[in-house]
């Protein structure tokens, strides 16, 4: 698999403070790449380096195999976390201006804008000023401006903040559609459920260092704890419970179900297979619920950051 963006051992200092320490990432073409990390970890610095807003002190960044050049700005669409628009400028005028800054000819920008405005059903906003719009409405404009010039690489920093659930979904669908059309997406957020939903790959940055990266599924596999969530029913549940506790490591579990007496998280060791556990359980009671506990992105995030 080829990579659209490769950062090789990128470092950046601000005075005494080391904001990035030899961070390397590789973003596969056509993927949605989650760039994660606690506040102040260095994500924004890395994103700014990719956007050539800040120059790295050390290390190299390649876009499509070529070292980053000023012309690459038209291949990148960036939605910063600290974002805004000129408040007293008209929506259409402003969108045209920003598109032209990215090197789009005016006529093309106009027709593309028409397309997007129709798509998001905001055609009648063209002559409104930004200050007349609500925050969510302004965010829609901001999103359109980011993707308008059909960049190869899209960088979204907290794209859903300020959106209501309906519009957040709308934007999420658009991001997925853009990916289908061939765009590669770098996605930075603190909302782990959207990481879960969208990302194929993730990289975790903590205290200026990259501490984890790879395919989300691979990482999850690495972090699995061989734990199974189990729901059982039996007449003499106390007895069953103590039998299980004798053979396995058991934690209480909470999940919704119709009529379970016993809800447990059961951890098995490497020698035991899930089938062994299941046959053990069926011999003791009626099994209504049997699911492997997959670590969530949230778990992985917290676990990794805390252990470092």
């Amino acid at each position: 698999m080829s990579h659209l963006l490769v950062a090789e051992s990128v470092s950046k200092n601000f005075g005494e403070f080391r904001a990035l320490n030899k961070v390397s990432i590789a973003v596969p073409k056509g993927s949605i790449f989650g760039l994660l990390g606690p506040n102040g970890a260095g994500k924004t610095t890395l994103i700014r380096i990719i956007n050539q807003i800040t120059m790295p002190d050390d290390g190299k960044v390649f876009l499509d195999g070529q070292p980053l050049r000023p012309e690459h700005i038209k291949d990148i669409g960036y939605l910063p976390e600290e974002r805004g628009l000129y408040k007293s400028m008209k929506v259409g005028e402003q969108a045209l201006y920003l598109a032209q800054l990215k090197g789009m000819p005016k006529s093309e920008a106009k027709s593309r804008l028409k397309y997007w405005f129709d798509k998001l059903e905001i055609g009648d906003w063209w002559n409104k000023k930004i200050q007349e719009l609500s925050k969510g409405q302004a965010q829609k404009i901001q999103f359109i401006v980011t993707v308008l010039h059909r960049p190869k690489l899209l960088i979204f920093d907290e794209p859903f903040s300020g959106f209501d659930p309906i519009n957040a979904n709308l934007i999420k669908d658009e991001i997925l559609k853009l990916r289908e059309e061939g765009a590669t997406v770098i996605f930075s957020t603190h909302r782990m459920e959207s990481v879960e939903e969208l990302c194929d790959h993730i990289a975790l940055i903590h205290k200026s260092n990259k501490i984890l990266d790879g395919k989300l599924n691979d990482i999850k596999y690495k972090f699995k704890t061989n734990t199974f969530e189990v729901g059982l029913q039996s007449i003499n549940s106390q007895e069953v419970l103590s039998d299980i506790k004798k053979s396995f490591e058991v934690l209480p579990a909470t999940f919704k179900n119709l009529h379970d007496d016993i809800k447990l998280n059961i951890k098995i060791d490497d020698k035991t297979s899930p089938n062994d556990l299941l046959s053990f359980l069926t011999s003791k009671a009626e099994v209504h619920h049997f699911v492997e506990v997959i670590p969530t992105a949230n778990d992985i995030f917290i676990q990794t950051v805390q252990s470092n």
Partner: protein
Amino acid sequence: MTFLSPLIMIALIAVVSYLSQINNDKKRTISVLDETGYLTDIFESTENTTYLKLNGLNLKDAKEIVKEKEDYGLLHIAKVSAVEEINDNIKFYSEEAPSLTVISGLERKIEKKLREIKLQEDGVSLEQIEASKIYIDISQESFEGEKSSKIDNVVKLAFGGIAGYLLFMFIIIYGNMIMRSVIEEKTSRIIEVIISSVKPIQLMMGKIIGTSLAGVTQFAIWVVLGGVLLVIVSAIFGIDMAQVNTPQQEIVNQAMTGQNADQAQAMAENILTAISNLPMTNLVIAFILFFVGGYLLYSSLYAAIGAAVDNETDTQQFMLPILMPLILAVYVGVFTVIEDPHGTVSTVFSFIPLTSPVVMLMRIPFGVPLWQQGLSLLLLVGTFILAVWFAAKIYRVGILMYGKKASYKELFKWLKY
């Protein structure tokens, strides 16, 4: 606003002149009770002021009468034995405090008359007194035969002053505009979107150049529109702008009566010759160069300030170091250049880059050697490049800094990022 401003200015001028006209049009009656008899003949009623001579009344009755009639006031000159004592025995009674103009006018009239009386007492005839009024205007000529006069100097001062002041105003108005627009981009958080498309230095230079072009356009519109409107307004309202006199001017005019028409004619001619004597080509070229250089230097500093702060209230601590040299330049220009355009102080300040644009522009009408102008310009351009480099550094870092209170120490650190 662009089109409204000159309109408002003209409206203001019209209102002020209209008001002062109303004020002047007010008819006053001043009663005079002169018990000495010296001054009776000088109070001749004019269009606006009627002098009412109350002869033979005593002061008490006179006061009663004037009060009853609600006249403007009563001038009372008590009986004296000698002219010298009049000052101690003259009083103006009125309901409200009288206007300064009226009192000064009366004082001038009386002084003039008393001087004449005194001179006549000493045996000088009225004709002699008239004949003793001699006006002197020393004509000046350089050793090379170049003629000049006081008028020349006034014209030079006016040209230099206007040029310097224009630059000063331009820097303050449009420098602030640049600063505000940088702050606006920061507070609206659009800055990061923009600089992912253009380089910070491009944005900064674009902002400086764009704002200055907008400024020049605005100035041009003001001048043209203002001129047109002035003509229209004065035609409609029949207000002769030349006659919009302040009370002070009125007094001067009164004092100068008698030498008016011819002199005004001669003066106008002198001014025209003085203007044609100015080194116009040099003036225009130097004006453009120093104007552009000075403006760019200051505006890059303004841009840096805008980038360093989060809102306009925080700009104060950085404004002072910018405004100081600017104000100093205007002061040096106004006080020192007038006194001695080629003295040490003026010359030195016309080389120091932060003051040179204003001071040099004020000096040039008096004739400054080209090498001095060139050297000063060179220093200015050098400083400008340095300032842009410095401003660009601050700008690049500052526009992405939020919530951090910038101190000079902090700014110094940014230079190294």
